[in-house]
Structure formats: structure tokens, C-alpha cells
């Protein structure tokens, strides 16, 4: 691409400015003459002119049709992260358009280094309600523990008045603010396996000469050739057999690669993880207390059972799938409440995933009455091409979008496959009358799906999926192509629908999928554990696509019980640097913005503080979420990752007046109740630790709080000083990596 490297601002700055005038029809004849002169003699300039006006024309021609995000949900796939980040890094900087709306509280700092990282944010904080003095004390007080792991609440300063560029100072001031969004542990950032390892991480800076495939889709040091299981694995039918099968396959990986798994996580680490993974928020202090004092040998299984029955299970998965299906920024035609209602019912009734998917693909009718229609309605723009691509990506784990225009460069997928798949959506039409929108099948089936090859020649195909082709003579007026497709997709002992779902669930719980990109499972993406993926997929199909059952298997596996901390013996097991995951530990995940917000709600009982003014809580939730969606949408299409779970972002959230209220012990808040209760000092400290971190306070933390209270620094009166120190402790806990990461 000759022009790609052109630095807009420098070489052709004048041309661009003239073009801007031209595009807005503000150009004077003299300026126009100048424009002409520039492009007359310079083919490079002419090219740039064309590219620029082409962009204008595209926007004009498509009237900036609602964008269908192709977000790759790759919380764990740094491969995509690095590339995507790189791809838009400058974009992200420039996207900071300060003129439009005021109060951008967080912005992206210009990245100047070799490896642009979206984690380099600068943040400007609004004034915190709490005293700034406190921070100095707390910092001194709690900077007690050092070490390699996240298990230490590092104290982050309370926000300071005015604006401040955290990015510039971050490494010093936020010692463990996990610059990689919490995906690494502690300060150890060194490539543990020598020179060959970090190809993917480095990809952002310099991957010229690498193939895309390499960067996107390959595990570094991944499995050699055993791409597809040679025979159907023997799994067994009972739940215990299936769990044993998972354990066996995972252990084989440990042996092959000579790693020793991390020790089993302690109950509080595991409890917190299970809550966040299954119901989307941390447990309350009381729930944590109850679990930690339980001696029942099957307490973990029981907890999973009760969480699966919790109404927040339904809410959590509804949120996750709503965001996946239509994104957080709502496309025009979509009736979000109706979609959510459909999902809520599906998850509450634990409908088979095959049914749910079938319904999304074949849904007809009014978008308010049939919530399932909203998925396709969100993607019907641009001749429904996005519907094709998104359906394939979300439900089949296949990224077909690039073979829309050309054959896949790295595997044998042909353009024809895309158009054959697309053909199933050709009957679909949108009827809209005022605000009422309906998705219908008009009944007319086109004779042949035409597409243009890159050489300009046309080719034709018919609707075709997995070898089943619908030629004109195979269809009649009664044929409903989308129904046929749904049927084809969900029939068989193993299906891509099941496989894609298993991969996604696995990623959700372990922080890494079997493939580098969770929804890119095409022939080029070799899974880390092919037999396991295959076996689990078959079991899932056999269970009737039972979502809760799949979660039971996954959460009862040996691997899910492990700690997230690694040791020397399994350092190499780090998909964050592109290594093939061995699941010898549970990888640390960042909270989503929903998880973070809901967890702060649970910890602080904001609802109680407001006298159960739930509307206020809901408004605040939406306000905060909007803030993050707007600000992070620019950087990565992975909307689920907008909130990167870093401490600066969490801090921003904490600056909400609502949360400040909740942290104030003088009102009827949780912390206020703890302070005023008859409990002993130690018990009070424990209550705070339980509420925030679901664990008992360390001896060091207890001693530090006491010492601070006794010092009279916070208040000459010990009682008051102690209360105030408790508040500080609570605040410090909530701002720690330990709080904001799922580990």
C-alpha cells in the first residue's frame, strides 16, 4: 500500500485541508485551483485524493449505515488485541475529538512508543468526595506487602483534584496497575521460554513479513500436527465420566509440556471466581463468610448449583449475550428489551442452545413480540451481509467476512462458501411501519446467488451449507431457507454450533479458549486440545445442548479448581503472550464494566444507602456504563473489553457520587453499619475484607489499620480514628487489583 505510510499531517497536509473544504463545499475557486494543481502533477497525491474522496463517497452512498461490529471477543486473545490495537492506535488517538461533547473524563493518551498499547490511558479525574489527605496515610500504611502476585491490595491514591495525566506517571504511581489489563501477573513480564516465544505480543510493533495467519490464529509453540482428532474420543455418559475425561485430557497436556499445575485455589479465591463467572458479581460478605466456614466436602459443587439457580445467573448471561448479539450501542431497528426478554426466558428455562440459535436464525415477526428477531434485525443493513458474517462468527465460530470479497488466503475457504451461506438469508425482508418493525420471509427465492470475483467476473451459487445445496429445483413456495439453515446447523452428533459454544464457555471460565480467537475456529486455527474440544462438544450435543450442564462439567473440572497464581513450574503456560494454553492454572481475567459495577454495588450495598431507590441505582448503572462504552469503543471492537479492568478505570467509576455516598460511614451504608456494630475491632476489619475481597484480612492489614487508628492521625479520638481508618481500608480494597481482577 503505497499511501498507507504517508503521514497525513506532514506530507499532504495542505491537500487534505483543501479536500476538507471541497467535501463541505466551502472551497473557493482559488483554493480549488490549488487543489487541482497539487493532484495534477503528482500521482501519489492523486491516489491520496482518490482514497480520501472515496471515503467521503462511501459515507455518502451508504449514509453511514449503522455499523455492525465484528467484535472479536478475545479477552484472552492477545493476538488479536495486539494487532487490532496497533491497527487503530493512531486512530484512537485522533478519535479524541474534543469539540463535540464536553466532559470526556478519560481519554486515550497519544501512544508514542514502538508498541502502541491501549492500556496507556491518561485519566483526568473529577474531584473525589473524600479527603485527599487520607491517601498519603493509607499508602504508607498498606504498602506493606510486596511480591509477585496480585494477592496484595496495592493502594492507589485517591483521585486528586483537577486533571492529571496518569499515563505519564503510571509505572511509578500505580505500581501494579497491570498495564496489560490484568492479564499478567505481577511484575514478571519477561518472556519465560526464551527467544522464540513472544511473537504474538510483539506483533503489534513489527509483524511485517509475518502472515496474518501467524499473528491472528496460531498459538506460539502450539500443538504440532494433530489438528483434528483422528477418532471420536471416548468420553462416557455420566457426569463424572465427562469430568474425568476433561481432567485426563488436560493432564495429558501438562505431561506433554512438562508443567506442574498451580496448586488448588483456596476457597476464597475460588468462591469469588465462581460468583463472577456464573452470576457476574462478587459474593456479599455474608455469603463469603458462610462459604468459608463450611466444611462440607462438596461445598464447591453445591455453590455452583445454587448459583445456577440464582436469578443473577439469568441476568448475567442475558447481558453477555445481548452484548454479543447486538453490541452495547444499540442499532436502530433493535428492540433491546424484547431481545433481553427472549434471552432471559431462554436462560431461565435453560433451553437447549440449539433451540435458541435456531430461533435466532429463523425468527419471524414483530420485533417487540418475538424478541429473537432482533438479532438479525441488528444486522440486516448492507443487503444483510453482516447478518451472514455475524451468524457465522457467533454461532459457528467461523469468520467468513473476509471471504466475502476474496478466497481465504490461508485455507481452502472460497468466496463461494460465504455466498452460499449468505443465500439462506436471501428470503428475509424487513417490514417497518412507523416504529413497528417486523422480520419476514417474503417467500421469493432468488434463482442463484450471484457474486463478483475479484477479477470482475460474476459467479453464481445456491444456498449451501455443509454440502447441502438448495438448487432452484429443490425449493418451492413453502421452503423457508432460514429454517432449513437452522435445521442443518443444529443436526448431527457434533455441530459447529455446539463447538463454538463450548469454546466460548471454556474461554469464559478459564480466561482462554482452545483457539487463539474464541470465535475464529476455521481450518487455520488449530485448537490447543482438539480431543477435549471434540469430546466435550459431543457430550454437549448429547445432553441436548444443556447450557447449565456444560457449566457444571467445566466448573467441576480439576483445572477450574486451580489457583490463578503461577510458579516456576508452569510459567510458560501463558496464553497472554501467545503461548498455547495448558490450563495448568486459571488465567486472570479483567472484569467487564458490568461485573465491576455490580460488584461495587454488592460490596458497598449502595442500594441500602439510597433507601432502596433502585431507579437511582439503575440510572447510575446506565450512566457509568455509557461512559465506558463511549470511551472505549474507539479502541477495540471487542465491546466486552471496553472496560479493561484497570485500576485507573475503576477509580473513575468510584468517583461516582453514588459510590462516594456508599463509602461514607456516617450514613446508613454498609460500612456505616459495620462501624456502628458491636463487633470487635478485628471482626470489623474482617467484615470489610469479606465484603470487598471475600477473604479474611491478613495479619499485616489488621495491624496496619490498628496502628493508623492509634496514631491519632485520622482523629485524636481512637474510636473515630478507627472508623475513619476502616473507611480507608475499604476504599483501598476496592481500588486494588485484587478487587478488579477475576483470579
Amino acid at each position, binding site marked *: 500500500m503505497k499511501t498507507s505510510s504517508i503521514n497525513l499531517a506532514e506530507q499532504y497536509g495542505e491537500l487534505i485541508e483543501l479536500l476538507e473544504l471541497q467535501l463541505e463545499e466551502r472551497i473557493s475557486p482559488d483554493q480549488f485551483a490549488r487543489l487541482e494543481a497539487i493532484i495534477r502533477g503528482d500521482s501519489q497525491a492523486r*491516489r491520496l485524493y482518490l482514497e480520501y474522496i472515496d471515503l467521503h463517497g462511501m459515507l455518502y452512498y451508504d449514509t453511514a449505515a449503522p455499523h455492525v461490529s465484528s467484535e472479536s471477543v478475545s479477552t484472552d486473545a492477545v493476538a488479536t488485541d495486539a494487532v487490532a490495537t496497533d491497527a487503530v492506535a493512531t486512530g484512537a488517538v485522533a478519535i479524541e475529538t474534543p469539540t463535540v461533547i464536553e466532559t470526556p473524563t478519560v481519554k486515550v493518551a497519544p501512544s508514542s512508543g514502538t508498541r502502541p498499547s491501549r492500556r496507556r490511558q491518561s485519566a483526568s479525574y473529577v474531584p473525589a468526595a473524600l479527603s485527599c489527605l487520607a491517601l498519603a496515610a493509607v499508602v504508607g500504611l498498606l504498602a506493606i506487602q510486596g511480591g509477585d502476585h496480585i494477592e496484595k491490595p496495592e493502594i492507589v491514591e485517591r483521585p486528586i483534584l483537577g486533571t492529571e495525566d496518569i499515563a505519564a506517571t503510571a509505572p511509578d504511581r500505580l505500581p501494579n496497575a497491570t498495564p496489560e489489563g490484568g492479564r499478567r501477573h505481577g511484575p514478571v513480564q519477561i518472556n519465560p521460554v526464551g527467544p522464540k516465544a513472544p511473537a504474538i505480543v510483539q506483533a503489534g510493533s513489527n509483524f511485517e513479513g509475518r502472515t496474518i495467519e501467524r499473528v491472528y490464529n496460531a498459538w506460539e509453540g502450539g500443538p504440532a500436527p494433530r489438528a483434528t482428532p483422528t477418532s471420536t474420543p471416548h468420553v462416557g455418559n455420566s457426569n463424572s465420566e465427562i469430568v474425568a475425561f476433561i481432567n485426563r485430557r488436560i493432564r495429558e497436556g501438562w505431561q506433554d509440556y512438562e508443567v506442574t499445575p498451580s496448586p488448588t485455589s483456596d476457597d476464597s479465591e475460588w468462591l469469588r471466581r465462581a460468583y463472577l463467572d456464573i452470576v457476574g458479581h462478587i459474593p456479599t460478605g455474608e455469603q463469603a463468610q458462610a462459604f468459608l466456614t463450611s466444611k462440607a466436602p462438596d461445598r464447591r459443587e453445591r455453590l455452583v448449583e445454587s448459583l445456577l439457580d440464582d436469578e443473577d445467573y439469568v441476568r448475567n448471561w442475558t447481558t453477555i449475550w445481548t452484548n454479543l448479539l447486538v453490541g452495547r450501542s444499540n442499532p436502530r431497528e433493535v428492540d433491546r428489551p424484547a431481545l433481553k426478554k427472549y434471552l432471559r426466558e431462554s436462560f431461565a428455562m435453560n433451553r437447549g442452545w440449539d433451540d435458541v440459535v435456531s430461533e435466532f436464525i429463523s425468527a419471524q415477526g414483530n420485533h417487540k413480540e418475538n424478541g429473537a428477531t432482533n438479532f438479525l434485525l441488528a444486522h440486516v443493513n448492507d443487503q444483510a451481509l453482516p447478518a451472514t458474517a455475524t451468524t457465522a462468527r457467533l454461532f459457528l465460530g467461523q469468520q467468513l467476512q473476509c471471504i466475502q470479497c476474496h478466497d481465504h488466503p490461508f485455507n481452502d475457504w472460497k468466496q463461494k462458501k460465504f455466498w452460499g451461506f449468505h443465500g439462506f438469508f436471501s428470503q428475509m425482508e424487513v417490514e417497518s411501519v412507523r416504529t413497528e418493525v417486523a422480520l419476514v420471509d417474503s417467500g421469493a427465492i432468488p434463482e442463484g446467488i450471484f457474486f463478483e470475483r475479484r477479477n470482475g467476473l460474476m459467479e453464481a451459487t445456491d444456498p449451501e451449507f455443509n454440502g447441502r445445496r438448495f438448487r432452484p429445483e429443490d425449493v418451492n413456495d413453502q421452503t423457508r431457507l432460514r429454517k432449513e439453515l437452522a435445521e442443518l446447523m443444529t443436526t448431527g452428533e457434533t455441530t459447529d454450533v455446539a463447538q463454538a459454544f463450548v469454546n466460548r464457555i471454556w474461554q469464559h471460565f478459564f480466561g482462554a479458549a482452545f483457539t487463539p480467537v474464541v470465535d475464529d475456529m476455521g481450518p487455520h486455527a488449530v485448537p490447543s486440545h482438539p480431543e477435549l474440544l471434540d469430546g466435550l462438544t459431543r457430550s454437549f450435543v448429547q445432553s441436548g445442548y444443556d447450557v447449565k450442564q456444560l457449566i457444571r462439567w467445566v466448573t467441576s473440572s480439576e483445572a477450574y479448581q486451580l489457583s490463578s497464581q503461577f510458579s516456576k513450574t508452569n510459567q510458560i503456560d501463558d496464553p497472554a503472550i501467545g503461548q498455547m494454553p495448558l490450563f495448568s492454572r486459571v488465567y486472570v481475567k479483567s472484569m467487564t464494566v458490568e461485573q465491576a459495577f455490580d460488584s461495587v454495588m454488592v460490596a458497598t450495598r449502595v442500594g441500602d444507602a439510597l433507601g432502596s431507590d433502585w431507579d437511582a441505582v439503575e440510572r447510575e448503572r446506565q450512566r457509568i456504563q455509557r461512559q465506558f462504552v463511549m470511551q472505549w469503543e474507539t479502541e477495540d471492537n471487542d465491546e466486552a473489553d471496553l472496560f479493561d479492568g484497570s485500576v485507573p478505570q475503576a477509580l473513575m467509576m468510584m468517583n461516582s457520587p453514588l459510590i462516594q455516598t456508599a463509602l461514607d460511614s456516617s450514613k446508613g451504608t454498609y460500612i456505616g453499619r459495620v462501624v456502628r456494630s458491636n463487633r470487635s475491632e478485628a471482626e470489623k476489619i474482617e467484615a470489610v475484607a469479606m465484603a470487598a475481597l471475600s477473604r479474611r484480612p491478613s495479619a499485616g492489614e489488621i495491624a496496619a489499620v490498628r496502628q493508623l487508628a492509634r496514631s491519632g492521625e485520622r482523629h485524636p479520638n481512637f474510636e473515630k480514628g478507627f472508623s475513619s481508618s476502616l473507611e480507608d481500608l475499604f476504599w483501598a480494597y476496592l481500588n486494588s487489583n485484587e478487587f478488579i481482577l477475576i483470579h
Partner: protein
Amino acid sequence: MPSEEFVQLFSRTQRRIYLHILGQVGNPTDADEVLQETNVVIWSKFDRFELGTNFIAWTFQIANFEVLKFRDRRRSSRLVFSEDVIEAIAEESEESQDDLDLRRAALGECLGKLRAKDRELIQTRYAPGNKGKDVADVLGRPSNSVYQSIGRIRKTLFECINRRLSAEGVR
């Protein structure tokens, strides 16, 4: 009657023809006009097109000719390019189709990366019939600042596309 295949070809290539024309005339509404005239010619000559040959090349020829006719009608205007420049642009455009296609494909994604409010602004700007000035009126903001914002967003999109393409330079 034109064959089904011809109709398909025609409808699938409209945007490319439009963009090809736009480069030469430099203004979306003028490009609309020339496209209409080009289409009239395409339809009247459908029987001269041989299926299996390059449809785009054929229509581009027609379009180029219509652009020159348009240029002739507007010769008194000081806001149209000279013939030699138009021809140079047409040639550049024909040569760049492949790359431009890739850029077009990348645009959607880049739009998705905009902040919601920026995307909203660009959508308003390009809503049917709107110009920068109208957006300023709608938003009640000084038109200069709106022009500036829109320009900045366009440049952002442009850079984003550049980056996407250089990232995928191997394609």
C-alpha cells in the same frame, strides 16, 4: 430484456461506478447526476455487453465518457477539474480498484471504532440530504466547530483504514 445475470451485475456494481465517478467530479450530488446518466446508457446498451467479460471495465468506460460530457456542460464553473486531470484521476481510479475495495471493506470496522458520539455525528452529517451546515443547525453549534469535528472524524477514519490495510498488507 436484460438477463437476470445482467441485472445482478448491474446492481452489485452501482456503488463502485458511483465512486469512480465521484473521484472525477469531486462532489457527491454531481456524481449522483452523472451516475443516472451513465445508468441510462448502460441499460440502453445492455445487449452489447457480453456476459463473462469484464462488466466493471465496460461500465467504467461509459462512465468516463459521461463525466466528460458533464464537464463540458459545466465548463464555465471554476469548481470542476480540467480534462487532463479528470483523465488522470480516472486512470488512477481504474488502477486502484482492488485497493479501494479493501479500503471500503475496512471502513465498516473503522466506523465501529469511533466513539459513539463521533459516529452519531458522522451519521447525522451523512444522513440523506444533509450537509455540514445542516448538522451545525441541528446541533445548534457554530458551523466552524462542526466542520472541524467532522473533518477530524473523517481523518480519523482515513488513518484507521490506512492502518488496517498496512496491518493486513499481506493480503
